[in-house]
């Protein structure tokens, strides 16, 4: 049993510090300082978990991570059981423990009155500990079912589904259009947030379990969707939601105005040692990032490491409140002002900034941004306030305003999968598309979301596919295709 008084004995959160900013800006390595990891501190933090009658964290996590269980196991130093319990709901805690925004912590019951338990840090420590102890082993199925599955996309959702399906004896091949596996994990997330060794280690385990991978193959282009369907007993579409939201204002086609993702992609390629001709780089430039989300923040860190002259983030809305507003009561996941590791590293953040025009120089290169103050209208819409325009110098503009959804044209035309008016792939609660044997999971189904949702969907879709293939399933399904987080 957990220590019922732990939260009264240890009141503050303690997590390992990041490396000092000047030091970490010199490399692409993870910002977390390995030397700061400390087992007594960690176990003390784990003892703050109250082992709730209703663990809202466990609900807040789409995966249904058994957070109270492994918190207590860490408190007791039962590392082997802790990783087992963690793995029982989460295929890849090393990913979520690093890059998940941790809705578990915002729904932690302790968080009502005290700083929440450091769940995410405990999670990552458990898996790191397990890798260090060499106890993450392949789970090789004892027999094959003879059924085959194609998983399209090697992001977290696709990988989770592939691992689940492989482990129950299906023959699974994962197709990835990029040259390396991992999807957004590989090329969307900079190394300073998560080093790629974590992906490689997992792929190694999966290969040992029997999952097969093909990179550099784009389904729809290299293999038509209908053909793929014909080659496999089932197909899982896990291609993400890569279509970025654009900012169609004057000057959009000027040089130096880019979507964030190609920029980050190239940055990651370079960090991996690739040569990238004509790389978009921030070196020596005044960089403007439009959009205050996680992608924007990744752009900041990347730009600063590339040696940007300045980095400014523009957000169209108000500065989020420092603490949970009344309209987003506990245990919902609130939008509050956050300082990521990248924000700590430099740059400025500007709010209520409506970009009205990209202003170019004579070479057709962006020179500055014309920005007006955002005005909130009674109907809830936001417009630039006339007369408040000002110009901000810019050499590189990165649009990080989110994503609108999946690529569906070929899937629909070749594969016959129905797509809704709003561009979403139609699917049932069980992840099945309108085409028999074709399933969709992750951002491709849900729209852009968090890594935990992707893994949760991948796991659940695997269960659905397993059931489709053999009639029953023993695999868990943590969420349905239409499960939503608790909202006020």
């Amino acid at each position: 049993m957990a220590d019922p008084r732990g939260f009264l004995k240890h009141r503050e959160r303690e997590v390992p510090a990041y490396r000092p900013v000047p030091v970490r800006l010199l490399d692409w390595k993870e910002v977390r300082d390995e030397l700061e990891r400390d087992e007594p501190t960690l176990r003390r933090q784990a003892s703050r978990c109250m082992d709730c009658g209703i663990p809202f964290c466990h609900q807040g996590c789409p995966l249904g991570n058994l957070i109270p269980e492994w918190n207590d196991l860490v408190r007791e130093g039962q590392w082997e059981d802790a990783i087992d319990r963690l793995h029982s709901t989460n295929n890849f805690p090393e990913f979520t423990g690093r890059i998940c925004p941790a809705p578990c912590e915002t729904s932690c019951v302790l968080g009502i009155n005290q700083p929440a338990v450091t769940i995410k840090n405990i999670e990552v420590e458990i898996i790191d500990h397990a890798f260090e102890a060499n106890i993450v082993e392949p789970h090789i199925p004892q027999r094959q079912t003879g059924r085959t599955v194609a998983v399209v996309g090697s992001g977290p959702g696709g990988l989770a589904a592939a691992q689940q399906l492989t482990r129950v004896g299906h023959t699974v091949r994962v197709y990835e259009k990029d040259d390396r596996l991992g999807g957004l994990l590989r090329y969307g997330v900079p190394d300073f947030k998560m080093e790629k060794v974590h992906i490689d280690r997992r792929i190694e385990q999966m290969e040992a379990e029997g999952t097969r991978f093909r990179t550099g193959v784009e389904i729809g282009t290299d293999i038509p969707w209908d053909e793929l369907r014909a080659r496999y007993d089932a197909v899982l579409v896990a291609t993400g939601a890569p279509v970025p939201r654009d900012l169609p204002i004057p000057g959009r086609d000027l040089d130096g105005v880019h979507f964030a993702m190609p920029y980050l992609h190239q940055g990651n390629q370079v960090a991996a040692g690739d040569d990238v001709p004509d790389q978009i780089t921030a070196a020596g430039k005044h960089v403007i990032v439009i959009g205050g989300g996680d992608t924007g923040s990744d752009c900041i860190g990347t730009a600063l490491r590339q040696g940007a002259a300045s980095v400014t983030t523009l957000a169209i809305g108000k500065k989020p409140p420092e603490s949970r507003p009344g309209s987003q009561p506990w245990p919902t996941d609130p939008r509050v002002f956050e300082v990521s590791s990248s924000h700590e590293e430099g740059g400025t953040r500007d709010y209520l900034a409506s970009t009205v025009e990209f202003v170019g120089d004579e070479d057709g290169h962006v020179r500055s941004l014309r920005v007006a103050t955002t005005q909130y209208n009674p109907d809830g819409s936001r417009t630039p306030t006339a007369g408040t325009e000002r110009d901000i110098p810019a050499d590189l503009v990165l649009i990080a305003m989110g994503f609108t959804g999946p690529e569906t044209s070929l899937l629909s035309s070749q594969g016959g999968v129905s797509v809704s008016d709003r561009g979403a792939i139609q699917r049932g609660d069980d992840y099945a598309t309108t085409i028999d044997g074709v399933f969709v999971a992750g951002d491709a189904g849900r729209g852009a979301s968090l890594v935990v949702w992707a893994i949760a969907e991948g796991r659940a879709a695997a269960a659905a596919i397993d059931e489709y293939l053999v009639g029953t399933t023993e695999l868990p399904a943590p969420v349905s295709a239409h499960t939503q987080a608790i909202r006020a």
Partner: protein
Amino acid sequence: MAAQTGAPQPGIGLYDPAFEHDACGVAFVATLRGTAGRDIVDAGLTALKNLEHRGAVGAETETGDGAGILTQVPDRFLRSVVDFELPEAGSYAVGVAFLTPGEEDAQVRAFEEAAAAESAWVLGWRDVPVNPEPLGPSARAAMPMFRQVFVVVDNLSGVELDRRIYRVRKRAEKAGGPFFASLSSRTLTYKGMLTTYQLEQVFPDVTHELYESELALVHSRFSTNTFPSWPLAQPLRGIAHNGEINTVQGNRNWITAREGTMESALLGDMADLMPICTPSASDTASFDEVLELLHLAGRPLPHAVLMMMPEAWQNNDEMDPARRAFYEYHSALMEAWDGPAALHFTDGTLIGATLDRNGLRPGRFWLTDDGLVVAGSEAGLLDIDPAKVVRKGRLQPGRMLLVDTAAGRIVEDEEIKSQLAAEHPYEEWVRDNAVRLADVPDREHVVHSQASVKRRQRAFGYTEEELKRLLAPMAREGLEPLGAMGSDTPIAVLSSRPRLLFDYFTQMFAQVTNPPLDSIREEVVTAIGGAIGPEPNLLEATPEHARKILLEFPVIDNDELAKITHIDADPRLKDIFSARRIRGLYRVRDGHQGLERRLADIFDEVDHAISQGVSFIVLSDRDSNQDFAPIPSLLLTSAVHHHLVRNHTRTRASLIVEAGDVREVHHVALLVGYGCAAVNPYLAMETVEDLAVRGYLGDVTAEKAVANLIKALGKGVLKIMSKMGISTIASYRGAQVFEAIGLSREFVNRHFVGTPSQIDGVGIDVIAEEVARRHADAYPASGELPAHQRLNTGGEYQWRRDGEEHLFDPKTVFKLQHATRTRQYDVFREYTDRVDGQAKRLMTLRGLLEYRSDRHPVPIDEVEPVSEIVKRFNTGAMSYGSISAEAHETLAIAMNRLGGRSNTGEGGESVERLYDPERRSAIKQVASGRFGVTSEYLVNADDIQIKLAQGAKPGEGGQLPGNKVYPWVAETRHSTPGVGLISPPPHHDIYSIEDLKQLIHDLKNANPQARIHTKLVSEVGVGTIAAGVAKCKSDVVLISGQDGGTGASPLNSLKHAGAPWEIGLADTQQTLVLNDLRDRIVVQVDGQMKTGRDVVIAALLGAEEFGFATAPLVVEGCIMMRVCHLDTCPVGVATQNPELRSRFSGKVEFVVTFFEFIAEQVREQLAQLGFRTIAEAVGHVEVLDSRQAIDHWKAKGLDLAPVLAQPEPGRALISATIQDHGLDVALDQELIARCEGALERLEPVQFDVPIKNVNRTVGTMLGHEVTKRYRGEGLPDGTIDITFTGSAGQSFGAFLPRGITLRLLGDANDYVGKGLSGGRIVVRPHRESMMDDTKDVIAGNVIGYGATGGELFLRGQVGERFLVRNSGAAAVVAGVGDHALEYMTGGTAVILGSTGRNLGAGMSGGTAYVLDLRPERVNALALANGELSLSGLDPEDEVIVRSLLERHVVATESPRAKDLLARWDEIRGRFTRVLPAQYARVRDALAELEATGGDLRAPGAWAEFLEVTRG
């Protein structure tokens, strides 16, 4: 046959006559003078009339529950009224036959033929004169015809004649003969469905001048129900009984089982006499039948009584070894018939009385100088000149009073028992034959492979949660773990998961009609060990009867099991005992047919083993594998048990169970309850060994873990037994005190014969399917165990995503809080939709009910407004102490604003709140601890609620550990900060239904304006109890579901005791309506009430008021942390920690909004159903249909028709009138009138009044008048001073406030000074009496219960549990019975003489001074743990004792006390001070704190204080 035993009423809906209970007044009168006389019969009739208040009447005041008289055969009288020749007295048998009108000829013929078959001759029949005039209509309608029959057998007389007559009667009964009130050559009974006054009016025979006897046994019955029945009245043929046999189901089964081995030369061919116990007879009737058998088969009546009702010998080291051996020997022959009992018995010459082992019924007796002996339930039964009384005594627990009218003397308990014990060399017999398992040679320890633990855990459905929450704590601490906040998961049959068969059974528990026991503080009366092995002929006594194996514990480890399975390896035991292992596995592939076939094969194997003389059958599921799954051990055990009972071979062998599925206390209790001798929970043991090895148990080793587990399981069983009031494992074994919920009746009737299953349910097919699913989890079809998952998560005790569904889950908690905090009705609907919407997830029985669609709606604006509906709402009884002041007061304010009612819970109420109209709680609870229950508290109540049981842990007490008794909590509870408080399992003034009636009367006197509630928990038969409660004149009855409850509760209680409220409420409504009692009582319901739909369903099932507890707490901010018992509630709801309290975020408006929303939903649904008010809807069960749960693999077998049964139209469905409490005739009316000057003008008043035992609760209403005017301070000391002469009825001076002195010359009954609140009570003998303080009894049991202040001076001996839970009164007494000073938390006691056993159990405060204390009589555990310290008097103590003694002398004129004072210097050294150690430390620390000006409320001060005072 039913007509014979008086259960003519067939079951209707949920009502089943089998659940009727009764309790009574009982008395006998006998003379030692050697001659029969009319005077004795008259005295008997008078005593009977003075027991009127212990009986009851139902809806018709002129119809009694039953009364009767048993005398010697009045030969002179009979001779004078028959027109045929009678042989000499003793040579003919006579008895009153109850003939069914219209069938009388056939019945007479059947009897005469039976007589002829036994060579007996019917001399003639006589029509008994009857005057039906005074009878009520229903009694008259059910009245049989009465004829006396006279029977002779050549050359036989006395007991020999009675043996033959017994054969005649048994034959006749089987052939359709009449019921006989008695039929004997020695005794004659007249009885019927009468009030005590009617007996002599209806049967003029008994008043005939020639009707003479040397003895008269009388009985006044109080039944829970009033269904017409004449035969149920008592006395029976040999006994009159005040009590209840808790184990009767098992006792009957065992008797049936023994029928195969019974032989008696005296009785002849036994085949004609079977069955011994008439089916469907009452518990007392079965007892009577077996007693009759044992007696007629050759044992003297007292011997037979001691076999069936032995005293508590197991833990009594003071007992003479020969007597111990007598009991030990007989315990191997027959289990005790356990339960509270005052048993009076007679064979016509001997007449006696005895009490159960724990003295749970009152018993008093008197002897006069002319040889008259009077014994009975009360003092004051006869008006006897005090000057003639030479002895006043009381029956002590397990002791016997015997009058030998032939010898003309009283035979003392000691003499009877010594004589019986000396009859055979029992000690030798036991020594030579019984084998202690510990003495059997040890076998090499076998270690089973750990490798498969995990797979087998899966096969038996173990979860991670069970490992962590149940097994690890048991293995670590040796104790069963606690939980809080009740249970909100579906019952087994509604769960979509496979559940263990154990989960379909719920524990029954004692409420109202019998008390639960206190297995911790009153451990001396319990016994968990016992003899196992084959039983020979019950009707003989040979040395071989002692051949048994003695087990100390019902749970055994592998080594002990190995000893038993290899018992014949010991050369000394080789041809005596043997064992055989039977495999309880079946081929899982074959499904339920395979299971059935395997059971049939097992029966054959067992029969074969028994025919070979095997003495121990070991039922084992140890070797399950891929193909063979385990049969649920409970099914295996019970099926074999009942198979053997049916074949009358059950007692030839004992059943041992080696079971992998057993891991909870509840599981062991069930296995023992269905007949097994010992349980070996091998997988649970392997599991804790594994936990220890894997480092989960700290420094507890694997061996220690197993030992702890076994201890926890065994001790837990003792606690479960205690809940039902059963004290020994031998009696519990096979007693089947469980009900099935959701099991098919056919299945239950086959393998669990006699177990109620009210709503039908799943059969063996689903049971097999559940086994198969668990098995598939261990041996999955894919062959792959899931990666990373050892076991399933669980989620029964805490919510988990992949676990069991809970009504409160993250979504419902959030939506409820959000809706009420932001006042959004649409969000509230989202919350209720999720709770109510059970189409997808079945959670509750009400989820299976739906409104009929053919109703005509009314416009919603015609429905009564929200403001009317909320008046019917109450919040639950949560004490201040269990929840914080903030949480408590917020609820109170909200309910006061709404016009509903909040409840104090069991924690008192501070004076500021009592008088604050905003913050007071309208309902004041009275629970077993009586914390804070003062005159002032009661006077300020709107409603007073007696908590008989609580949903989370019915039948158990509670405990507030010292660290939670913060100063402010201690203040309202009248206790000491830092000293733990215990609520006993029973109310020590409610051991029976008539005791409840008395407490209701007491509370009504304490506040005539308040409604009195009785809170019950739903279980099978609760409707019958509710009817009894209505007859006790309770104004409100509250039915709680099994699922409610905050605070700490053992997990087995939380999950496995009680039934859903839907069943209990429907049962209550149906039974009340059936009895036409519904109009006089308000019915309230609570238990996981969460939505408007819940309220409407409850109303339709019969409730008119509704209680909510958990939901309003959630509204206040509770997030179901379920740590109420740990004081760490992080949201300030259930904690006293000031820091955590500051986090409380609840607001009155939120709670108000919640109830308004609920009421609004109620309105909408009423409109939809076409009702304009709740009152219109109450009881209209026809509006409900049961939804067929066709998609649910388990619930589809349920049958809710009994829940929806409609009562006969024409009777009230809702309360319409009020109870008549009879206060206008109370003696207090006169007292109040005469005290007017004192009440109004503080003028001292002093006067004398005569008093009788029928004057109950004297002084209490007067006290009410004082407190009403002068609050807690009362009047100046001695303002009112009243002297009474005579025998006072029960509860003399209850709740007496300061300023009143009551002096009694004579004696008093039970509960003197109950709740004494500052007044003074003096009880002393009459001036002319010859009483001796040191021997004679002055007052009864449970004196000063829950007293908070005042003084008691008692010149004489008193009964059991003196000053139980006293927290402030000072008392002087000459001597006390068992369990004195129990649970005392404050005050002072001076005991000038002998004490009974178990003094100071649970005493945590106050000081006692005992003259010549025998330390072995002090609670052993408390002494051993250093909780009580014994020492001499210090100078300060001397002053206290001396001054109390001086005052005692002034008040009582006790010559003895005077003498002690005179010799003070010599005497003072003989006093021992009994002082609770923790209390002493706290007292010293508080004194020091006061001296230094410290403040306990300062930050950190409390923790420091606890540190300083810790022992």
